[in-house]
């Protein structure tokens, strides 16, 4: 997967780049409008992560320009701290594939990229196998063990899916909470909703098989450990 990061804020660019490299992406960078415009025209990317406020031009113009070029098949994800509502509407109208307001979680970025990839290649029935024989049907939102269905609530499913998607990574309660509650502003970051959810998930899973793969990392968060 070839990704172009269009971002003029160097520190932010570096962090995103490091994260994507570690996640086995091929990364290219542009720090201003002209540079980005040229790179998009010359190279073929799978993803363009587009910051809107760029030196030398507006990111939305870049998107428009790229969309007029038939050869371009890159998926655009707009990353902006402008927080302006109109930009979002404009971006999606012009054919951006997704939109992430800054500040965003890198894990969230990655799961959006995976979702776009799934959509693009028409993977209708995506199944993830994990732990001792659990099979997650992402589209159907069903978790199975063998022929049996594990009854999870909507939030429990989302939480487990997120952990499985980022397996072998420790996810903090904040990261999990942000994924579950999205843009809703929660001011009690100390709440134990995530812990209760995990406890319930473990209880449900262990009726079918061992739930030990869902680990607690003391003081930090939770992790789904790779089983092979």
């Amino acid at each position, binding site marked *: 997967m070839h990704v172009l990061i269009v971002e003029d804020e160097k520190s932010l660019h570096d962090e995103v780049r490091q*994260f994507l490299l570690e996640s086995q992406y091929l990364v290219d960078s542009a720090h201003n409008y002209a540079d980005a415009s040229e790179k998009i025209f010359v190279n073929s990317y799978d993803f363009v992560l587009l910051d809107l406020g760029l030196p030398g031009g507006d990111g939305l113009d870049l998107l428009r320009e790229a969309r007029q070029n038939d050869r371009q098949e890159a998926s655009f994800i707009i990353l902006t*701290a402008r927080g302006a*509502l109109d930009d979002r509407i404009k971006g999606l109208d012009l054919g951006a594939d997704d939109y992430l307001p800054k500040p*965003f979680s890198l894990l969230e970025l990655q799961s959006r990229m995976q979702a776009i990839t799934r959509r693009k290649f028409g993977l209708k029935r995506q199944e993830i196998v994990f732990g001792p024989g659990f099979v997650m049907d992402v589209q159907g939102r069903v978790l199975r063990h063998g022929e049996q269905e594990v009854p999870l609530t909507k939030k429990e499913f989302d939480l487990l899916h997120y952990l499985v998607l980022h397996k072998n990574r420790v996810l903090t309660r904040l990261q999990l909470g942000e994924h579950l509650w999205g843009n809703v*502003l929660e001011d009690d970051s100390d709440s134990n909703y995530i812990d209760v959810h995990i406890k319930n998930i473990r209880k449900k899973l262990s009726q079918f098989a061992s739930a030990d793969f869902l680990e607690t990392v003391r003081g930090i968060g939770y992790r789904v450990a790779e089983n092979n």
Partner: protein
Amino acid sequence: MRLEAKLALFNALSKLLLVLLGVAVIPAIVSRVAVAHTDQRLHEKKREVLDLIQRDGLVAFVRQEKQEAYADYNILKQEYISLTPELPRPKPAAPQERIFNEQRQVDDEVEDFRILSYQFEADNRPYRLEIGSSLATVELLEDTLRRLALWVLVIGAALTVVTDAAFARFLLRPLGDLISRKLHNVRHPSAFSFTPIPTTTTDFRQLDDSLNEMMHQMQSAFEKEREFMSNVSHELLTPVSILQTRFENMLQDPTLAHAHSLKLVDSQKTLYRLRNTVKTLLLIANIENDQYLREESVSLAAVVAEATNELEDRLAQRELHLRVLLEPDFVLPRANQTLLFTLIFNLLSNAIKYNREGGSITVTGVVPPQGGYHLSVADTGPGIAPENLPHLFDRFRRFHASGPKSPEGFGLGLPIAQTIANFHKATITATSEVGKGTTFTLEFQPIVAEQ
């Protein structure tokens, strides 16, 4: 009351006054006119008679049988002419000609007459000529004239009332256009139409131009505000963004010592707090600066359903019983669905957070007698002390804990709720009883029909 209606009313009243004045004054004028007219006719008749006497001589008038007087009456006894010889007298002291009202007997009837009496000499003999016109005739004329005048007045008044109203309507049409096109349907500066209203009236032209000018200024102020907010967002959120991604990357580092990981998680918490504060302030500022649209029609029941669906697990975790009594539903014709969701979500989320385990939450919608809609969210939590109630919606105010399970503060959820409520022209109030629970009530105004 609309200007057009006022003008029409004023117009009608002034015409009515005119008619009343006419009714009061016309009889007097008409009777004068009628008398003057009669007098003039008598004078004319007198001239005719004198002319005849001159031409034919007095002899033609003198009746043989009576030898001394001549009189002629018409059949209806409306007029008479009499010629009477008079005793020779010294030059008359009385005026030669007089007009007066007097009774005269004609045949067997006595009637009031207006009489012109004239003394003259013919054949060296003084004669007196009397020409009379029945007063009944004069009154008849007077009556006819009076009726005619009144009818003309009434019809004229009625006609002008109608034409004046039509003309006023025509004249005021640009004003109506101005109000309906430029004032009524504008909810957002960007929705303003700058097309000039067609009018030749200078005042309206001026009004329209100043309105356009003002709106231009507002739009530019609005744009500046938007740009400012956008820049502030960028300046505040970019550093947060850098730190957030950096912390995330650092946490993935397998060589990181556990103690440092704990510190990082703690820093992440602090950063989230900062982030949420910044986002909340930006949200409130953006709502207050009207940067959000109000263009969707939103059903409150649907929003409540959406929010409770999201909060299902939390309700279950605390074993809370939720009752939703939204019959009838209320549909806001112009609202922002996302913001209303945030509002309801915040209220429900608070009701869950500050409830007792196994308690209940009741969402009730009622239509009050004066119209509109009241949506209330009641919990069975520890309640809020009366002294804290007025400050519930203050930003960044924290309370001293008054019990082991009582909230130390509602954070920014309620100020957001209040801002969103105001954005939708609703008010939010809280009532609470310590030990029993708290009820938040949203009062929506009645829907005003669109023009």
